[in-house]
């Protein structure tokens, strides 16, 4: 690559970066008014932040979505942690499989409540650095999945209780959620820029459910918590997906008739088109 080309590319990168910074400032200026509710402790600074988009629509072609978070941390902050959490915690029914003879089968059933459907953590430094900093427990504990065990509620149904049930259940649940992309620990993924600007991105997987989501930001200087911020966004089923999903639950009989009607109509049309037997 010639030095001329290299200079051109460098200028292009710098221009892109300055455009990004201007965009963040403009967005923050527009968004500060909407996010003034986070400050609860008078000693803490409020972190202005914006999520983009504010509504994620799940259409027929939905596979995944990205939600960006822009913000400005208080002066002096050198590390930051962002936690995305679904507001709704629907009851989940899980089964524990155990070996019965030669087969693996579900032998115990658990009703798990008060555990978020989605929980993603992004940080500017390794989580161990936050944990060893001596920062207040209630803010840094949220960086670990283990924290969720303080509030979860488990009821067992069927089978003999065992000492390791809760541990196996919790780790199995986390493994399941991580595999679905709903739980995620993304260490050192946030970069603090000049002026305290930061940009974080969350990947919402195909398994994301409709509902409201909260994004909490914690800014530290070493062990000292300097500021907190909170913003929200929502995920909504839209178009055909929203219509069919709602209909299948709220108007189940109508949905059932529609399902059979479509199948009969398609079958007749195909028989007319091919005029021959297709296998079933």
């Amino acid at each position: 690559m010639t030095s001329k080309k290299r200079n051109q590319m460098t200028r292009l990168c710098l221009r892109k970066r300055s455009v990004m910074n201007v965009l963040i400032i403009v967005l923050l200026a527009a968004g500060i008014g909407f996010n003034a509710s986070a400050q609860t402790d008078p000693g803490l600074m409020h972190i202005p932040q914006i999520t983009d988009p504010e509504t994620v629509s799940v259409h027929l072609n939905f596979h995944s979505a990205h939600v960006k978070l822009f913000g400005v941390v208080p002066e002096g902050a050198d590390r930051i942690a962002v936690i995305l959490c679904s507001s709704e915690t629907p009851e989940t029914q899980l089964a524990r499989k155990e070996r019965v003879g030669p087969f693996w089968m579900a032998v115990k059933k658990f009703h798990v409540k008060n555990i978020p459907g989605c929980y993603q953590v992004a940080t500017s430094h390794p989580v161990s650095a936050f944990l060893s900093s001596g920062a207040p427990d209630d803010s840094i504990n949220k960086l670990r999945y283990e924290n969720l065990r303080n509030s979860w509620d488990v009821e067992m149904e069927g089978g003999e209780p065992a000492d390791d049930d809760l541990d196996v259940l919790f780790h199995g649940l986390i493994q399941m959620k991580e595999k679905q992309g709903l739980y995620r620990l993304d260490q050192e993924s946030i970069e603090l820029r000049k002026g305290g600007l930061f940009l974080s991105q969350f990947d919402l997987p195909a398994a994301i459910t409709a509902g409201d989501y909260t994004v909490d930001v914690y800014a530290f200087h070493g062990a000292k918590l300097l500021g907190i911020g909170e913003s929200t966004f929502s995920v909504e089923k839209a178009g055909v997906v929203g219509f069919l999903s709602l209909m299948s639950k709220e108007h189940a009989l109508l949905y059932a008739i529609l399902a059979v009607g479509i199948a009969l109509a398609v079958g007749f049309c195909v028989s007319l088109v091919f005029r021959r037997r297709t296998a079933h």
Partner: protein
Amino acid sequence: MYIYLPVAEMSINVFLVVGIGGIVGFLSGLFGVGGGFLLTPLMMMIGIPPAVAAASDSNQIVAAATSGAAAHYKMGNVDMKMGLVILIGGIAGGTVGVQIVKTLRELGNFDFVIRAVYVLMLGGVGGLMFVESLSALKKHVAKTEDEGVPEDGGTSISKKLSSLFDRLPFQMQFESLGRKTTLLFPFGAGAAVGFLAALMGVGGGFIMVPVMIYIIGMPTVKAIGTDLFQIVLVSANVTLQQAARNHTVDIVLAVTLFCGSVLGAQLGARASRFLRGEQLRILFSVIVLIMMVKMLLDLILTPENVIAPVRVSGGH
């Protein structure tokens, strides 16, 4: 290209679903037997929850069987009376099956039961077909003549059974048989197949057609036409009940599958002209046995995660 399934609440590659529908449709067209019992396990393999896979497969079967039944009806291959007796049995079996599915799912053992029943069915059908087609192939090689359909066994069985059925109550004249027989047997066979349709999302053609030919003694073409007719109604009943009670029918999944299976069935029917009957059957039985081994391993091998979701109303 991905498609979001509103009831399964998951996104899946549309070409994968159409491809699976296409492969099963191709095999159906090629072998002239139902593909429903292959489709549900294939859907489970790509991550669709078993209950949604089975219920949506029933919906897909309604469409596929309708196209076949309409064509057979025009050709006069549908014995309506026999079909209706089987149908009444099918509705009774299907209704019981849907209730059992609901109870099993609440207990959290549905996945195990559906997989275990599948292993038995696939193993039984695949094994019998393999042995029968292998002996037919050997006979063919020995005789070096074409066409050696082993119908003797079936005919002798049906003759023995018809004398038994003649002594049972509820006799009725059937057009396709040209004689009277008891209602009880077609009713019982319909109930058994309806139950399987609810449990596994299969049309039941792969059991019903041999039963009608070898045991009831119907001509092959009329057995296929009548079977398709009753499958439309049994599967429609199962779809209605699964959607209304269990909320597990995904219309988007069923329609996407059907797009593939229609095209596959046409290609398969054309490809079948290049192979002899016993060659087709032995190939089919090998595919069925491979599926059986895969599902058996899933039950026996240690799972990656011993915690699994219990699905209550389709999706999370």
